[in-house]
């Protein structure tokens, strides 16, 4: 019950971590099934329909329900601590964001047991995703599930923006903010400007499928290319929503374990901003073969290649940070250092794909699959592993086992390169993506076998990590404030795990890497910026949970509103939008309750604060 009503950002972080980890596991199992099907030519392990459902759900689940929530978990766990705040700007909305994400994700995955998962690919290209070509409710689960989950993401993004703008500790100017906080800030801005586009896209597709609208139906005057534009004007910035937080994590971990400040801090900040800006300018590089014409292709080609410049700045800054540093290869740092070459390789193939004429050859082959897995797994997932190993003691008060951490790293990264490195060659040799099998004797057999074995090895790495988490949870929670001993930022100045109110006294920030600056000046703790006083806390409330349940019910009701049911009662309830109305009533009723009863919160008095 405590977990359902909590509005504490640290507990919400844990909820995000478990829920995201759960969906990540589902997405991972889907990947393993895909690779088993492709282990040999003309395999009959899966049929074509199931394969289509698996690749669709693998992509969708991993991006929206797996890695994004884990990113949000780390942001929630760390950002208020890093900027010296007691909480986020809107604790209630923070909880609401989590619950809408969870119920959106559950709705999407219900499709597996309710008559067929979405099968049009994670991009849901029309007309493949139209009611004509995708007749089950699969794509409806996709549009409505993602709509609900996307609501949660947008709420989270606005919350972090407001938190970072208004709640930084005294002395923490923007140019003294840790890089992970910067990455969160910029990522949230991208979320704010990218997610409404997919909101509209999903609404249009829902209307086409359920209300018979004609947005993408050529027979009614619609235009399928419109979907591609709307999808990618969201979808390309989404790539940076995923990777910028990883950049932020790497920029925290590498300086800590090199005992040096981050090289070129301000160039890192501006590179991040520039990447975000350019990220909105390049969506049509996903559409070179759509037929936009040479002028559009040339412009999008050039703007895409420009992104390599700020990204290169970042890569070199990380290398220069390690240069001459006292580098310690903890498992967190192994993942961070492993990130650099793998992500760079993904970037290099990105430049290859950005060349429009070459893209005509690479398009829809395994070369593309290899490229984006190098970016997203070799970049983001390694980054998340690094961040999890780094902040685990802060989140839970327990150090993850270093031995098992190193085993995780080596099995995972070897498995990763085995899986995806060979896929570059499969692609160049002409193996298509999205097809459920291939003919023998095209030189595809051996490389596919290697790829599948690699995927199994990555699975082993994940299991070792889960084992590590399990064993660690049985150890006593005895991690100190600064368990890595070289912590540079504010989260390492308070106990692990932090008390509910985070900072007994808001710290005074006197420079970049605030804690490190105090340490080098010979101080053991931060100088407080206020006397010990009563701390105002928000009250726990079940309303965010109830509101999300309402949206979930409304979504299901709308999705089945045109169906014919065996029982007359069911038909009556669904076909007259009664279920939808009931769900919306629950949600809006909760909003009304929220507005009628002011939440004054409660106070922690100075006598109750630990150690005072």
């Amino acid at each position, binding site marked *: 019950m405590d977990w359902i009503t909590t509005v504490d950002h640290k507990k919400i972080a844990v909820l995000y971590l478990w829920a995201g980890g759960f969906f990540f596991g589902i997405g991972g199992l889907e990947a393993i099934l895909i690779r088993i099907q492709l282990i040999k030519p003309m395999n009959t392990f899966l049929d074509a329909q199931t394969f289509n459902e698996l690749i669709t759900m693998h992509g969708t689940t991993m991006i929206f329900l797996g890695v994004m929530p884990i990113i949000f978990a780390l942001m929630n766990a760390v950002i208020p601590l890093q900027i010296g705040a007691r909480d986020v700007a809107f604790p209630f909305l923070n909880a609401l964001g989590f619950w809408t994400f969870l119920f959106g994700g559950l709705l999407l995955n219900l499709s597996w047991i309710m008559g067929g998962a979405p099968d049009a690919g994670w991009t849901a290209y029309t007309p493949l995703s139209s009611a004509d070509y995708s007749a089950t409710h699969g794509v409806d689960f996709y549009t409505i599930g993602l709509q609900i989950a996307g609501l949660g993401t947008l709420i989270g993004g606005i919350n972090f923006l407001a938190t970072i703008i208004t709640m930084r500790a005294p002395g923490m100017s923007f140019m003294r903010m840790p890089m992970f906080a910067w990455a969160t800030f910029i990522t949230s801005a991208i979320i*704010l400007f990218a997610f409404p586009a997919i909101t509209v*896209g999903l609404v249009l597709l829902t*209307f086409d499928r359920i209300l018979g609208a004609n947005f993408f139906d050529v027979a009614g*005057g619609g235009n399928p290319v419109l979907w591609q534009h709307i999808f990618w004007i969201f979808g390309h910035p989404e790539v940076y929503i995923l990777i910028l937080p990883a950049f932020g994590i790497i920029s925290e971990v590498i300086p800590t374990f090199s005992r040096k400040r981050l090289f070129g801090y301000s160039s890192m900040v501006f590179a991040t901003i520039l990447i975000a800006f350019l990220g909105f300018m390049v969506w049509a590089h996903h559409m070179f073969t759509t037929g936009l014409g040479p002028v559009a292709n040339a412009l999008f080609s050039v703007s895409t290649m420009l992104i390599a410049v700020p990204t290169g700045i970042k890569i070199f800054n990380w290398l220069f940070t390690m240069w001459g540093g006292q580098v310690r290869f903890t498992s967190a740092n192994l993942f961070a250092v492993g990130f650099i070459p793998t992500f760079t390789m993904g970037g290099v193939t990105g430049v290859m794909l950005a060349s429009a004429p070459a893209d005509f050859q690479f398009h829809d082959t395994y070369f593309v699959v290899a490229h984006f897995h190098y970016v997203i797994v070799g970049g983001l997932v390694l980054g998340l592993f690094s961040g999890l190993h780094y902040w685990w003691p802060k989140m839970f008060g327990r150090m993850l086992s270093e031995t098992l951490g190193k085993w995780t790293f080596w099995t995972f990264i070897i498995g990763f390169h085995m899986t995806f490195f060979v896929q570059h060659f499969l692609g160049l040799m002409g193996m298509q993506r999205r097809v459920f099998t291939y003919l023998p004797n095209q030189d595809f057999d051996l490389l596919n076998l290697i790829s599948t074995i690699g995927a199994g090895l990555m699975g082993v790495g994940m299991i070792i990590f889960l084992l590590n988490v399990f064993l660690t949870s049985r150890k006593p929670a005895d991690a100190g404030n600064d368990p890595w001993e070289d912590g540079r930022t504010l989260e390492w100045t308070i106990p692990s795990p932090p008390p509910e109110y985070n900072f007994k006294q808001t710290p005074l920030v006197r420079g970049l890497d605030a804690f490190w600056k105090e340490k080098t000046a010979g101080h053991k703790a931060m100088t407080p910026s206020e006397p010990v006083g009563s701390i105002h806390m928000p009250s726990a409330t079940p309303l965010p949970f109830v509101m999300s349940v309402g949206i979930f019910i409304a979504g299901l009701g709308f999705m089945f509103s045109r169906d014919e049911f065996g029982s007359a009662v069911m038909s009556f309830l669904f076909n007259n939008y009664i279920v939808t109305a009931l769900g919306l009533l629950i949600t809006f009723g909760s909003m009304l309750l929220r507005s009628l009863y002011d939440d004054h919160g409660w106070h922690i008095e100075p006598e109750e604060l630990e150690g005072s």
Partner: protein
Amino acid sequence: MTTAHAEAADANLPHEPEKATLEGRNKVLAFWLFLGGEAVLFGTLFATFLALRNQTNEGPSANELFHLPLVAAATFLLLASSLTSVFAIQAMHRNHPAQLRNWLVVTVVLGALFLGLEIYEFSEYVRHEEFGMTTSAFSSAFYTLVGFHGAHVAFGFVWIAVLIGQLSRKGLTVVTAPKIYVSAMYWHFIDVVWVFIFTVVYLLGKVG
């Protein structure tokens, strides 16, 4: 606070009550951010409409459909409601809760009249012009864009109506002031969107 009490001005209310607390400032800031997202939302809807506005699929075209006097009347009502919401905020800044409430009431009444005209317009199209959601890509884009705006107006209507109730119960305080201020921002925003709809959908439909 009792209702009678709420009518009287609170002498301790700060000059800009919506920005007096951190929570209030956060609300106003986050709402500006939210409106940025809403701008992208409507931008995408406008782009969709512009791409599909001539795809009538042998159904009615914009030129045949629209009656500018009706739309002009709706526009007048909505723009006037934006002005009255400005008066409401000015009354709030002068610390006159009763005036504030009255201007808010005028605002929601004008909003309701606008909605009434829009519902009348849509029902005329559906009943007499055989112009429904499924008629053409143009019709889908029209109903989605204008309907989304209408849904925003309806939401704003309910929202401000609830706030009027809250104002009567709790009076004008540093808790209620940011909510009222933010709802007025929202109301201006949907007004601005309507100006674009009037131009891009109706005027361009008649002459473009």
